């Protein structure tokens, strides 16, 4: 390490190799991935996020929802993601193909949202999501700032929340979701991984034996 320039070149090359291996390597593998065309359905999956939903993802990102919610389901037998009804198959790279900024997240202090719009038996309704965002719950903060408290001019807005009790607005006023709330809810309802890609299917049964052995380690 007495040779100064050589030392710096060594440092640089070490990092360049690691970056190429991890980042460029996965980019080479996944950067040109295409949607999967289902011959039977005659449709390509995943669908592009359109309009409100795509803008809603930016709201999701800037509020930092990813600090408590993940958007990645692990495969059956790995953790308990299926048992919690978060999705029946594992998430694969293709699911995120058209997302401008995938929100994989790293904490599950709140539930996973990958398949919120495809929940069984019923996904949450628009109305329920608005109420949840406005009122919060004992485990979730209320985001009242996404809503507008407006005077009722003429008819009550069709989007106005039907609230009762302490959270109800004063008479003659209504709580209407603002633009950010509307895009966020459109995004959340659009989240689903209902379609089954070939690479997302579980391994055939005879290969499952070593998986158990691995889990014990």
């Amino acid at each position, binding site marked *: *390490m*007495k*040779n100064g320039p050589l030392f710096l070149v060594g440092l640089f090359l070490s990092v360049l190799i690691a970056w190429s291996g991890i980042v460029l390597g996965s980019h080479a*593998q*996944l950067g040109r*991935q295409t949607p999967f065309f289902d*011959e*039977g*359905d*005659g449709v390509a999956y995943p669908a592009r996020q359109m309009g409100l939903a795509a803008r809603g993802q930016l709201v999701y990102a800037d509020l930092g929802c990813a600090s408590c919610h993940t958007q990645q389901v692990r*495969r059956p037998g790995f953790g308990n993601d299926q048992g919690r009804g978060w999705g*029946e*198959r*594992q998430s*694969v*790279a293709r699911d995120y193909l058209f997302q401008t900024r995938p929100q994989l997240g790293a904490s599950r202090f709140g539930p996973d949202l990958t398949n919120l719009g495809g929940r*069984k*038996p019923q996904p949450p309704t628009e109305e329920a999501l608005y109420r949840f965002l406005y009122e919060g719950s004992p485990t979730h903060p209320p985001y009242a700032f996404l809503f507008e408290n407006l005077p009722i001019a003429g008819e009550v807005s069709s989007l106005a929340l039907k609230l009762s009790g302490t959270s109800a607005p004063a008479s003659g006023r209504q709580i209407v979701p603002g633009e950010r709330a509307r895009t966020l809810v459109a995004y959340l309802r659009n989240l689903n991984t*209902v379609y*089954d890609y*070939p*690479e*997302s*299917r*579980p*391994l*055939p*049964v005879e*290969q499952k034996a*070593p*998986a158990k052995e*691995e889990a014990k380690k």
Partner: protein
Amino acid sequence: MSAPTGSDPRVEQAPVTDEALLDSHDKLLGRQPDDKAHYRLLPLNLLFLFSGLIFFAGTYLGRYAGHFHPSVFNEHGQPPKAGAAVAVAVDPLVLGKNVYGQVCAACHQPNGQGLPPAFPPLAGSEWVAGSEERLIRILLHGLQGPIKVKGTEFNGAMPPVGPGSGFNLNPEKVAAVLTFVRKEWGGIATPVAAAKVAEIRAKDGTRPPLTVADLEKIP
């Protein structure tokens, strides 16, 4: 001002000077004051440990890297074979369950209990437990008019779901959903073959929805 000024006698005096520090450690690296840069070999025990770690890492990588394939997400998985995109082993029960959820559950309900008076139950139905040929044809052509299931009369119209219909399910999916329904509610474990669905489809072509009378002609 550049002379070492402002020294406070209370500042803790380091036992070694920088010079002594560098000298003593230089020696440990096997450098004579003006030697070429070369490292003494690692102590034997460290070398041994290092090799052990490399051996473990190499073995682990070889075993669980999924052949470095972009579409292998399970470390025990195999990359799909070239040109065999369709031949990827699919569990028909999983596929069937999904298709059931997307297509059938709206009328027959997720639990297969149906919704009288129009939508007959599948759970415990003698039709589900009965002839495979009939079931395939119901899915391919649809079913119209009254039908008796579990002793109750139902009257509805089931649209066709097979290729060319509004749902446009391919033979693989038709077979999968039947496999799922028969396993789940008919107690029949033998899967329905996609080839058989395709064969019946080719033989019958398209036709108007069946009635119970048509069904009874089918073995």
